[in-house]
């Protein structure tokens, strides 16, 4: 692809008062037919289109988006990237993704600001610590970097954290993945959009799919708010709205959509150079390059499509963060928002063919989809191009809910459900 973002380009454009930059991607009107249409221009959908074009040589791809590019959960997450999952199937999928993250900025010639600052998962009970030992060992056996740390070692690495015994849930230790970290969420959508656009992928915003044209259990096209689009293959990556899309195709999904909230503080001087997560007290925090504390809460327990959550959920999370970091008690919060996450019964995604020929679903990422963005797109592109799953997503088929081969990742999935 055209690697036209470079230091040299920045320098020469600077001489020209930066007047010569071209739009990073083309926003176009839909053509009447495509070989593959991806529903949803979030990170996962755009990554799918990119890898379809780059690795599988598919021409004539469209990504349709009912809102604007990267305006859903891609813009609403807390940007944590890690791969320390318990079970082989999940760990290998997320590790595949983490490896792609490590080369992503060079690959798509767009700075996604991937920062491997490490992630701590705190333990507060003896059972937490046993689970951490088990997960760290499982990770190591899968070739994934992970360490089990004592409370003293956690304190050494994160001086501001409160490891005193005088708290409601004292910190007993943590698991630590050094290669984990954070990335710039918007840059991931913009970077994949630009890279896909370079390969000729049409990115069509404000284009809502209203119906699916299915004949004899085969997809024929999509009815959209911007006209009919004929296509033989559709990849649906609609996150919280996956159930709505599945219903349009007559498919039942084991998915429930819940609000998940996050909030950021005013900007502070650098004080936290890693990511801290705690399932037991229910909060996670990192500091962005702008200096804001980025804090994630838990899900609301009822189903909802409102992209907002209840105040008592963030109150609970703020209390948890203050117990971990008493210093943050006077920090003012700037913004709060909610996204709609598509949760599954086993806290693992569905990357699968369906009973409708030519219709594929990539959904159910729940509270932890951002970290999987490149890996998810990569294996989903393979699934669509070959009409068969990539070895890494065989286990994530929709029929596991009929065979009973669930992959129970509730323990490692980050946000307790």
């Amino acid at each position, binding site marked *: 692809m055209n690697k036209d973002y470079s230091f040299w380009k920045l320098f020469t454009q600077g001489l020209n008062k930066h007047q010569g930059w071209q739009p990073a991607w083309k926003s176009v009107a839909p053509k009447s037919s495509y070989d593959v249409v991806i529903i949803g221009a979030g990170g996962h959908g755009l990554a799918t289109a990119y890898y379809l074009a780059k690795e599988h040589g598919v021409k004539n791809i469209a990504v349709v988006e009912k809102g604007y590019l990267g305006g859903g959960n891609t813009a609403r997450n807390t940007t944590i990237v890690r791969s320390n999952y318990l079970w082989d199937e999940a760990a290998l999928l997320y590790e595949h993704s983490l490896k792609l993250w490590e080369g992503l900025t060079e690959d798509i010639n767009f700075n996604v600001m991937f920062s491997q600052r490490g992630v701590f998962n705190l333990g507060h009970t003896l059972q937490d610590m046993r689970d951490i030992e088990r997960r760290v060992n499982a990770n190591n056996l899968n070739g994934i970097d992970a360490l089990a740390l004592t409370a003293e070692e956690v304190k050494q690495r994160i001086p501001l954290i409160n490891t005193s015994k005088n708290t409601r849930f004292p910190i007993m230790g943590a698991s630590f993945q050094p290669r984990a970290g954070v990335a710039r969420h918007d840059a991931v959508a913009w970077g994949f959009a630009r890279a896909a656009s370079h390969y000729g992928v049409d990115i069509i915003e404000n284009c809502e799919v209203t119906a699916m044209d299915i004949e004899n259990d085969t997809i024929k096209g999509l009815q959209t708010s911007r006209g009919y689009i004929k296509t033989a293959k559709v990849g649906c990556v609609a996150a919280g*709205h996956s*159930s*709505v899309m599945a*219903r349009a195709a007559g498919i*039942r*999904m*084991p*998915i*429930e*959509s819940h609000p998940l909230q996050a909030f950021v503080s005013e900007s502070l001087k650098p004080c936290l150079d890693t990511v801290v997560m705690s399932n037991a007290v229910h909060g996670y925090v990192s500091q962005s390059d702008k200096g804001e504390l980025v804090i994630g809460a838990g899900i609301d*327990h*009822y*189903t*909802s*499509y*409102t992209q907002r959550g*209840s*105040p*008592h959920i963030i109150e609970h999370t703020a209390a948890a963060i203050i117990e971990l970091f008493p210093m943050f008690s006077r920090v003012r919060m700037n913004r709060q928002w909610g996204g709609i996450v598509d949760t599954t*019964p086993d806290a693992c995604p569905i990357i699968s063919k369906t009973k409708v020929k030519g219709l594929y679903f990539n959904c159910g990422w729940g509270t932890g989809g951002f970290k999987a963005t490149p890996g998810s797109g990569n294996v989903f592109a393979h699934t669509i191009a070959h009409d068969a799953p990539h070895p890494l997503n065989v286990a994530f088929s929709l029929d596991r*809910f*009929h*065979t*009973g081969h669930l992959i129970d990742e509730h323990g490692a999935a980050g946000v307790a459900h």
Partner: protein
Amino acid sequence: MFVIRCPHCCEDREEEEFSYGGEAFIARPTEPESQTDETWGDYLFMKKNPKGWHWEMWGHSTGCRKFFVVKRNTANHAIDGVWSLAEGKKAYETEVKA
């Protein structure tokens, strides 16, 4: 944050007093021995998860501790009605038939 009326206590109370019981009226298959894996999987895991009106159960967990039925709109959190489980089932079946 929204307010729910408990049909047992007959009082409007804040959402925090209640616990969510999920989709209502998921019928357990009759004759379990002769069901296919597909029927069981559907019964155990598949959800309607509509964007719009949803028939669901809530428990008044910090009040009377009884379960009841709510018809709530998942797109805007509007509540159309609350019923006891038995009355809710009747209302639901009337709506499905209509």
